[in-house]
């Protein structure tokens, strides 16, 4: 596909977007799976408070499902192509930025359906910055060739 259009396909270690998408994908998949083990049956699907993952990050089952979906999307994109990784990194980064900001203001309200706490906000904002930063600022040669 991309080869037919004359674009190179950088290896995983040469493309920051593919590297980030793959690493974040694996980490978020593991976090999602671990979350289900930690939460078990002791928490509701959208409870506003839940158990702590690694003793820091508050989770509920919806939070775990979101982690699994995001992890899968990132991993698939990272293993696919640079353009897919750039797109998914940018999209997930924007969603995390939104969650990082909005989530901050809905703690202790019924709208906190992801059971977010301060550690979650920190992780979401860091993830958002890295994902958006790499989507906007890296692999520019790939973008300029394919555009």
């Amino acid at each position, binding site marked *: 596909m991309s080869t037919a259009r004359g674009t190179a396909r950088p290896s995983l*270690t*040469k*493309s*920051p977007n593919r*590297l*980030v998408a793959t690493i974040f994908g694996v980490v978020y998949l593991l976090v999602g799976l671990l979350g289900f083990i930690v939460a078990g049956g002791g928490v509701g699907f959208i409870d506003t408070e839940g158990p702590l993952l690694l003793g820091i990050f508050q989770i509920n089952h919806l939070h775990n499902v979101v982690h699994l979906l995001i992890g899968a999307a990132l991993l698939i994109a990272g293993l696919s192509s640079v353009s897919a990784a750039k797109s998914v990194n940018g999209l997930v980064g924007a969603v995390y930025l939104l969650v990082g*900001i909005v989530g*901050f*203001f*809905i*703690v*202790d*309200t019924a709208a906190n359906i992801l059971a977010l706490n*301060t550690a979650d*906000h*920190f992780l979401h*904002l*860091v993830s958002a*910055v*890295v994902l*958006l*930063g*790499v989507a*906007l*600022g*890296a692999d*520019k*040669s790939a973008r300029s060739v394919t555009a």
Partner: protein
Amino acid sequence: MTAVVRQWIALAALGAGLVHLGVAAGAPPVLLALFGLLSVAEIAWCVAVLRADRFPLRSVALAGALLGPLIWAASLFAGPALSVDAANLPPAALAGATLLDVIVAAAVALSLRRHPRVQPIASEPHAGLLLAGLALGAVAVTGVALPALGSTSAGIAASDGPHSHSRVSDLPGELPGHTGH
């Protein structure tokens, strides 16, 4: 200026934008408009830097980076006229945003001094170096921005929650923690 350093400056602008957004959320109309516009401009400039690999609109960015501290100082002096009290100007939050803004201003000023006309485009660094730099910058900026956001009135209200009994009453004779009843 290397690509990694340029990314850090962009992230500093993003952090300042997020904090100003938090301050605007709990501010009266005049400050809401000023800090709201400033935060949108800062976030947009961050995106532009990341996309363009250079500092766009350097003179405007330099002035804009100093606008946050200026609005803060002006609000302190003209507070009563603008219906602004101390609670609308959380010092820790605005100090955090000012720190990030000063970093942006210094970097842009340095760029203007070194390359007054055309900025050289730095080559893209190795993927691992780029990611390490980005992760370091993200942790540093979030480390400044998140506590700053937490000290805004919106952040304090969020962490106290609607049923908190830790808030101090604003009205004489009102019981603490029952302001919403």
